[in-house]
């Protein structure tokens, strides 16, 4: 008992010294090396998405041409950021049509669980990541036009693979045309009317303010500093 304690004690000291030795030498070696990073985005030799690691998980992309409408991805999503609605085509009752395929990229945690059950590989992570928005609801990607929708893909059992458009091209097109700047789907409640200023409780404890702000559904501009819009701070 005593010997193990002593060994732990001396071992802790030894670990400290050794880790200091290696850690300090590593940081010092980086001090005299050329920095690996380049300034973003104006000095990169190529587009950043082309320099990302191969398994990078960016925004989800759905190739409507090979989507079977099986809703496996919707069921797989642990946080429910995918919403799919299937309807019958009024013209052709045998044909089902996807009229809503919304992915809320603001909620998505890029876990990749929706990609795995997809039978055709229609839903995939791309390497796109730049989509700063002033309104969080604009981060909803609508892959089906609500008016027309797209017909589901009939799986060919004998097919070796399913023809898919180039990965990322659809997302990129949406990003570049800002087509995804659409108003959000219905699972986002409409923004509640802001209470008038004088009705705000003035004597709320300051510590409770951030929690209250986080719980409130009203989304604010993410760029604003959290301290600045605290309701209980007053200007001196």
């Amino acid at each position, binding site marked *: 008992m005593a010997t193990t304690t002593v060994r732990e*004690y001396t071992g*802790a*000291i030894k670990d400290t010294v050794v880790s*200091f*030795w290696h*850690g*300090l*030498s*590593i*940081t*010092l*070696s*980086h*001090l*005299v*090396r*050329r*920095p*690996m*990073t*380049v*300034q973003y*985005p*104006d*000095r990169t030799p190529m*587009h*950043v998405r082309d320099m990302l690691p191969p398994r990078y998980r960016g925004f989800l992309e759905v190739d409507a041409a090979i989507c079977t409408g099986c809703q496996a991805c919707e069921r797989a999503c642990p946080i429910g950021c995918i919403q799919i609605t299937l309807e019958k085509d009024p013209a052709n009752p045998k044909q089902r049509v996807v009229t809503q395929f919304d992915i809320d990229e603001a909620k998505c945690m890029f876990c990749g669980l929706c990609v795995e059950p997809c039978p055709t590989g229609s839903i995939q992570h791309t390497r796109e990541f*730049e*989509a*700063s928005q002033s309104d969080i609801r604009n981060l909803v990607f609508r892959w089906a036009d609500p008016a027309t929708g797209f017909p589901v893909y009939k799986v060919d059992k004998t097919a070796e693979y399913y023809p898919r458009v180039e990965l990322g091209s659809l997302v*990129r097109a949406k*990003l*570049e045309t*800002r087509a995804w700047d659409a108003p959000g789907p219905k699972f986002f409640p409409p923004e509640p009317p802001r209470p008038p200023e004088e009705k705000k409780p*003035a*004597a709320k*404890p*300051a*510590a409770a303010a951030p929690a209250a702000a986080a719980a409130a559904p009203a989304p604010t501009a993410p760029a604003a500093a959290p*301290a600045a819009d*605290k309701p*209980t*701070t*007053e*200007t*001196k």
Partner: protein
Amino acid sequence: MSVPAIPYAPKRTAKSVVLLTLAVGFILPVALFGAILVLSPLTKPAMFEALVNQLGGNYAAWSPTAKAGAYAGAAALLGFMLLNFGAIISGTTVWWEMRVSSRMQSRIGYNRVGAGGFFQWIADAVKLLLKEDLVPAEADQLLFRAAPYFVLVGFALTFVALPFGESIIAADLNVGIFYMISVTALVVVGIMLAGWSSNSKWALFGGMRSAAQVISYEIPAGIAIMVPILMAGTLSMQGIIRAQGPWPWQWFVFTNPFAFVAFIIFFIAQLAEGNRTPFDLPEADSELVAGYLSEYSSFRFALYFLVEFGNLWVMAAVAVTLFFGGWQVPGTTLQTFQDAIGPGPLPGAAWWGLQLASLVVFVVKTLVVLNVIVWIRWTLPRIRVDQMMTLCWKYLVPFAFVSFVATLLWMIVVARYPVAATVTGGVLTAVFAVVLAVFLRQTKANITAAGDRVDLTHW
């Protein structure tokens, strides 16, 4: 949104603005340093009198009020300059730390404003001063406003006894090092008041953690400081420096093997007391937002920042004083300084030159230690609260006691055989040099193993 193919276009700044900022950034520290150099001996009463007589006045004929007023004015000027020196040092330290940290993390940082990003800290300070000064509505108004000043005063008071050179010290208190420890306690009081008065849970936790941490680490620090005090036989900062020699094997850190242990303990305790990584628990960004200064903004936040980075200088200077021989210039002794004074009422040019040399030595040593602190910050992660307490009470305190007692025994041996000090000094210095060489080789190996080479471009 895809990146538009806009070529990088640097912002154009007027030449006059660049020159002005250059003047502010570089000339001001130099001028301040020079002024401190001149002023701090001159505020000694005898020398002040000599200066007045030298300038054509007749000090003896002055009225007591005039004497007191002139003297208070000189002391006030010196204090103001020291405070500003602390502010500028803390600013430049911020800049340097950001440069080093970005480099250590293989990235580029702080290179947009001015020469090598040097004016970033000035821009930040100006921005902070112009920002809105928020006081939370539920905060304790008076204490919330007062707390930064406690912290600032606790920081500024250390400069009273901080040596810069042979005669360049505001006041060579004969309880100097003791005084330094005691006035830094004001910083803790300020931090606790800030944490409490903010009326925020994060700030409160930060303040409590800070108090627990600083009180705990004062014990090993105090015992470790006893080791150089024992070897020097005095509490005065200048006395401790004079008890050491100019060469590495004459420094306290190398003359006595237990003093080396004491230095390590003292250094760790200083990091903890200065809330530096890996002991930045009071302001742990990932858990406590910013700890005790969460609710602060504008000028008051700037004060906390000033103190935090200015403390690096104080920490390094105290370590240099206690363990690294202070301002001792190789090739000189105390007698050299005495001889250079000359017969006149004011000292001769040789004396001022020696003062300058001692100042340079001290500053260089201090900057080396300061860089080690910065280096450690960007190497280690933050430790947990229980690890922090374990380190203090289970490791540092026993080792501090051991080194304290062992130093006593070592002093008995040295009193009998004076050659022992020389032997241990030489051996320890050699060992340290070898370890340093092996370390540098390891560093080089790290670089070559990664297929890279030493490259100081793109700095």
